[in-house]
């Protein structure tokens, strides 16, 4: 309702709005369009100084092939999946339990525990870094997928708990009371009543956590050393150093690295936005 629907404006304004939309979008995405175009440019174009003109020929296939042949990026992407997927399962799974506990039961330290999760979720990574790396070393999990996953699960449980608890709190409490009057055990209430109703929250959180963890760079840098553990974000930094000015390769690799979360976003857009904006409408 606000601003006033453009359909109610004079025709010239409607027309200019429709012209302005794509122009604004192009300006907004200019950096992205730039690298997309560069990634299909032959390297001869760059050498000849043709940075902005139409590519002399489409070199997408050779550039992207080169990216996979000249680097470990395939491995890195596989590593990212190996870190991200178990993290999503772990963090979302654990937070279904914690969220249920905090939303349904009244007990003495309920709010204290809840705000422990919320506050922990906001802290700077650097204050955790030294002890977490130490702990991981002591567990013998340094430079391993498991070590990264364990930390990510623990940390993301904070945000997930906030999300799940608020989601369950918004369900009608009479559903739970009604089951209690019927003598249903607490676990069965969770399993048969609350969990099925949490599906949208689980979907939303899964896409969000996937994106967050996939895009993590800091922990990938300090917890992984070897190529068979390093996720793609950390890998990209290495490739940047390795290729220096071969921008057609760097840009192509960037696009490859960005692709999985982007695909996730477009496939699960509704859930993604619902998750990100939880709380943006009430409170």
């Amino acid at each position, binding site marked *: 309702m606000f601003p006033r629907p453009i359909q109610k404006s004079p025709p010239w304004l409607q027309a200019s709005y429709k012209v302005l939309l794509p122009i604004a979008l192009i300006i907004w995405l200019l950096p992205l369009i730039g690298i997309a175009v560069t990634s299909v440019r032959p390297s001869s174009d760059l050498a000849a100084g043709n940075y902005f003109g139409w590519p002399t020929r489409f070199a997408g296939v050779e550039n992207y092939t080169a990216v996979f042949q000249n680097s470990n990026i395939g491995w890195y992407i596989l590593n990212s999946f190996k870190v991200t997927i178990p993290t999503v399962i772990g963090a979302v799974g654990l937070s279904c339990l914690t969220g249920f506990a905090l939303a349904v039961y009244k007990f003495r330290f309920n709010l204290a525990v809840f705000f422990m999760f919320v506050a922990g979720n906001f802290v700077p990574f650097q204050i955790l870094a030294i002890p977490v790396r130490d702990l991981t070393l002591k567990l013998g999990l340094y430079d391993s997928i498991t070590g990264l996953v364990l930390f990510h699960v623990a940390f993301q449980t904070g945000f997930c708990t906030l999300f799940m608890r608020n989601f369950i709190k918004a369900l009608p409490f009479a559903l739970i*009371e009604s*089951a209690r*009057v*019927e*003598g*249903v*055990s607490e676990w*069965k209430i969770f399993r048969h009543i609350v969990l099925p*109703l949490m599906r949208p929250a689980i979907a939303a959180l899964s896409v969000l956590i996937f994106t967050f963890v996939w895009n993590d760079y800091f922990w990938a840098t300090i917890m992984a050393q070897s190529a068979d553990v390093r996720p793609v974000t950390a890998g990209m930094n290495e490739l940047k150093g390795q290729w220096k000015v071969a921008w057609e390769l760097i840009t192509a690799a960037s696009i490859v690295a960005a692709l999985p979360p982007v695909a996730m976003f477009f496939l699960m857009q509704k859930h993604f936005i619902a998750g990100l904006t939880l709380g943006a409408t009430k409170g």
Partner: protein
Amino acid sequence: MAEVTLRAITKSFGDVKIIKGVDLQIADGEFCVFVGPSGCGKSTLLRMIAGLEDITSGSLSIGGKEMADVEPADRGVAMVFQSYALYPHMTVKDNISFGLRMTGHKQADIAPRLTRAAEMLQLTHLLDRKPSQLSGGQRQRVAIGRAIVREPGVFLFDEPLSNLDAALRVQMRTEIGKLHADLGATMIYVTHDQVEAMTMADKIVVLNGGVIEQVGSPLELYHRPRNLFVAGFIGSPKMNFIPGTAAPAADGKIAVTLKDGTQLTLDGRGAKLSSGQPVTLGIRPEHLAPGQDGLKATVKLAEYLGSETMFYAALADGSEIAVKADGLAKAAIGSALSIGLNPAACHLFNADGVAIIHGDLTR
């Protein structure tokens, strides 16, 4: 046997006392309605009987057993929630049988109960639907069905009809009444709608501010309200209250002088009162006779409902009075209206609001 006994029950949330000492006896098989304005504590009282709220002090027994430490599920009660609390992801069948399945009942035991409840509530053709595919009345029946299959001694209803439209409400009222007759179980029913209370109850409990104002059958409350609150709450349209003074008169009668100067003589019925004490006269609109000698009033508003006509008039001192007249009665706004007043229908309340004389026409 599932009689319910409450003794000196209180409930506090922090420093706030919601229930301030309730004693109540509900007989086995009785249909008992808790009625009162919002915030009177009626729902809290019901939830305490269900075991969903702890009892702060006092004792509660169901079927002669003390219930303080008994879990809701073990009390032999079933509850129908205001919101119905249907599980949105389950079919009607699963909703109704869920509690039985979760508490380890055998399929052979569940099936006949389900069939019986579904037939009783005409839900048989809806068993495979989800709640979102049902109308309001159907959802309501599913919620009741969920209670029935548990075969409880006591049914608890928490404002179950408040989400339905008027026509459906009337229909469900009779259906619940029929169910009560069929099952013979004890039912405790919370509502803020006094019409619902009057039509369904064997026994009405009028609650206000966390205490019981009066307990009795519907007609008892209508004819013999114990105080101003009950007199004003039960009956629609509301009873008229006219301030005045009273004094003893000859032959055990009582002389009442209303604020506008009208003099009346009522049958004393043994009531004791001091001369000139302030009183409130109560009379129901349906017990007034417009066009006969009595109170002198001016018509302020007339509502022609067809079956009856309501006049809202003002006495000389400005006090307002509602009169229920025949559907053919007519009076122009601003015209004078003489209102006849049957002394036998007059209630008299003292300055504390307690009834001194009941205008009980049944005796």
